[in-house]
């Protein structure tokens, strides 16, 4: 068991490492790809050669980023098999489909048209080239769609039923999987956060040029496009972020409780605008205060989570102990069961499956029907059958809490930044305000912090569930020695770090070089 947990930890660390590296590059592909497409469209419509030069400049940076995104992406898909083999069988019938469709619909589109995008300027017509550029970014966006459909399904499993004969979950409604409200929200929230990063990236580089009094035409034109794309992206991010919070409150209340550091829920729950967690709070069961210091906006969490001023938002202890009125996944009002009750039901489900298989082997149909019924009745909490202590179902609160608040604070900052920059451009004052240009420059690393924080909230906040309530991480792994995973973890860490440094180095050189011809 100890070795099992060690393998789980290393496998989680490896997946987190590769996903976080991948997530450094994908948003820029999505955002900068859109911006490049818009710029080329302007060139196509106006015939202005300077727009072609601008497009090509940003396209070069897009290419450098795209390559490392591809490199870090391949390992994610295969890790489901190499490190999460039990998961791959248990839900492969549902989860595999979006990955395969992503390949067929998106990857080929990207890889085909990116070749024309980079090498086709003199080989295809202007219109065909523009189409290739758009198709490359559409391909990248479709790719994001399918992987987010898959991710959303893990957080809110729908459209499937457990089959005791095959000992796995099987899909019965593809439409439910694809059109899951969590998937739709997640898609728009994630993709448009890429637009925000793309906007900030372009603004940051452009501001640097303006400060250096170089590439002024490129910088001024790009600044405007970047700020508009960023603003539109940010507004959609904010809207879908609100939708996400509401969905999390309904479907993953423990995640919401961790995001806000709420241990004891109440009606009219306030939102922590700023807070410092109490490091002495070691367990949900101790009597330590959750916060050393906090500033709350009264009732706001209730409004966001329940759409009611006095709506009840359960805290970690409420969820552990149950007893409050809530809604189940079908939307019916129920009294929330405690985690101990869920664990009991989970164990019943596991035992029922065991009884089913035994009866099947003996050819006892009556016993099979009885066991199947017991399994159906308790399957909702199947994953709790692997849980041995209620504390295991609590995500790491400090990571989730701080990441959430960093994300929200920076999101508000970016919204303000885009508005101010556009207003200053309109008033023709931005290019003379050096401090504001520096603000744009330093906003780039801040944007990356914001994006990674969002990832931490989404993924650490759902721990320990690899599939919500159905399968915990420690039942999803491959049976390999921890040393194997530990070794590959460090190999990935070293390789990706070197490649990241190389990428940044190339980007910096390309930016310094500007649009000069060799």
């Amino acid at each position, binding site marked *: 068991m100890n070795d099992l947990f060690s393998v789980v930890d290393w496998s989680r660390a490896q997946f987190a490492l590769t996903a976080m590296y991948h997530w450094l590059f994908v948003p820029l592909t999505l955002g900068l790809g859109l911006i490049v497409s818009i710029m080329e469209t302007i060139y196509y419509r106006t015939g202005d050669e300077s727009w072609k030069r601008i497009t090509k400049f940003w396209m070069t940076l897009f290419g450098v980023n795209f390559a490392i995104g591809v490199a870090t992406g391949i390992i994610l898909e295969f890790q489901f098999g190499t490190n999460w083999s039990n998961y791959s069988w248990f839900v492969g019938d549902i989860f595999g*489909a979006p990955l395969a469709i992503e390949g*067929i619909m998106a990857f080929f589109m990207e890889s*085909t048209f990116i070749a024309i995008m980079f090498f086709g300027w003199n080989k295809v017509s202007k219109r065909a080239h523009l189409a290739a550029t758009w198709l490359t970014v559409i391909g990248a966006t479709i790719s994001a769609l399918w992987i987010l459909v898959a991710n959303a399904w893990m957080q809110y499993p729908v459209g499937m039923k457990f089959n005791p004969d095959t000992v*796995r979950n099987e899909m019965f409604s593809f439409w439910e999987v694809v059109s899951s409200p969590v998937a739709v929200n997640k898609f728009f929230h994630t993709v448009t956060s890429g637009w925000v990063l793309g906007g900030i990236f372009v603004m940051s580089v452009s501001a640097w040029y303006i400060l250096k009094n170089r590439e002024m035409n490129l910088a001024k034109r790009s600044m405007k496009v970047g700020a508009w794309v960023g603003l539109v992206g940010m507004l959609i991010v904010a809207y879908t972020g609100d939708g996400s919070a509401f969905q999390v409150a309904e479907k993953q209340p423990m995640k919401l409780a961790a995001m806000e550091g709420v241990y004891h829920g109440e009606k009219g729950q306030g939102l922590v605008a700023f807070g410092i967690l109490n490091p002495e709070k070691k367990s949900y069961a101790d009597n330590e205060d959750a916060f050393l210091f906090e500033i709350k906006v009264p009732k706001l969490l209730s409004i966001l989570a329940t759409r009611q001023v006095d709506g009840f938002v359960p805290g970690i202890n409420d969820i552990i102990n149950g007893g409050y009125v809530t809604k189940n996944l079908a939307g019916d009002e129920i009294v929330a069961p405690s985690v101990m009750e869920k664990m009991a039901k989970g164990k019943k489900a596991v035992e029922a499956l065991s009884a089913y298989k035994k009866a099947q082997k003996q050819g006892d149909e009556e016993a099979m029907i009885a066991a199947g019924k017991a399994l159906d009745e308790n399957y909702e909490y199947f994953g709790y059958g692997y849980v041995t202590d209620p504390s295991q179902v609590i995500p790491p609160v400090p990571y989730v809490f701080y990441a959430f608040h960093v994300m929200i604070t920076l999101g508000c900052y970016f919204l303000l930044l885009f508005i101010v920059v556009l207003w200053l451009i309109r008033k023709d004052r931005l290019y003379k305000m050096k401090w504001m240009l520096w603000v744009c420059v330093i906003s780039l690393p801040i944007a990356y912090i914001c994006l990674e924080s969002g990832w931490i909230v989404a993924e650490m906040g759902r721990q320990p569930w690899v599939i919500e309530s159905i399968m915990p991480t420690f039942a999803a792994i491959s049976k390999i020695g921890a040393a194997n995973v530990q070794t590959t973890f460090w190999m990935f860490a070293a390789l990706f770090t070197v490649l990241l440094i190389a990428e940044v*180095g190339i980007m910096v050189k390309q930016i310094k070089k500007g649009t000069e011809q060799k």
Partner: protein
Amino acid sequence: MELNEFFYQHYWWFLISLLGALLVFLLFVQGGQTLFSAVAKKPIEKTMLVNSLGRKWEFTFTTLVVFGGAFFASFPLFYSTSFGGAYWLWMAILFSFIIQAVSYEYRSKKGNLLGTKVYDIFLLINGFVGIILLGIAVGTFFTGADFRIDKNNLMDVSMPVISTWQNPSHGLEAIVDWRNLLLGVTVFFLARVQASLYFMNNIDDDTIYIRCRRQVLYNAIPFVVLFLTFVAVTLLSDGYEFADGSSEIYVRPYKYFFNLVEMPWVAVLFLAGVASVLYAIIRAAFATKWRLGIWFSGIGTVLVVLSLFFLAGYNNTPYYPSATDMQSSLTIYNSSSSLFTLEVMSVVSLLLPFVLGYIFYAWRAMDRAPITELEMESGEHKY
């Protein structure tokens, strides 16, 4: 067994086989990466070779990723068992492709940290290791692997893993199996033959053409010898089988030979593929200005690999035999997704002709004029 399920399982094994076959064809990119020093003597020649491959590497990469994704979706038990068990074999393959993915874009750019030489070494490693290990992985479809599957393990809450590898090497043992290695090295020489044919087609340079023509011959000789040895070894070896409607697996001597006899259409595909590859090799090696070799060799390769996959998975043959527990062996019936998922995926697969159509369009648009020295010196985007 319902006819429907039977059909879709066969259909998806066909698609997996097709993707695998296309992947082997597209490994000419990796083969080409091992030919730089043999074919290019001047920097501009190397630039032409690198750029010629650099416009195609993503097809190979994408096909590998789609091959993996399609396997996951259609035969998840294989994905779970092989990837989770033969950990080091698959990890080594992945590492070799990760370093390839950045190498083209970064190799000649300033500020790339490692220098051009290191990225070229990455390409070389991907060329050698990537091909040979993929060949080894496919070899296990015939030679088997050390795994056991027990779905009842899911009820063991302390260790609920259903697929377990039966040796601590986790895939490294497949590399030292000479039959797997034989296939790996065979694919390696094939990829070099195809790369030479591709360069002859894609680059307009007489010197490169002549050197590639020589490489076709140099690599074709070991390829043909190794390939015939692999075929002979496979056709003469025992294989696993199960009877219609039964899940009981047993050993059948000369299983793959009998598969060929009992599926004559596969034999026809196989022979047609071999003839096409041989025609491409012989004509390219001796003609003075023939550029179509890559197409004949490519189509031939696809046909041969398809037929090998069919031999591995059709005619009641477990495509992933377990060397330690015969009854755990994977068949297209016991490892597939549910009928519903296969149906959904099959609808999506109808997009494939459309995908192939736009790839063809793009390829034709880009390759209408072969790569020349002039283009490389023009200052446009290049690697």
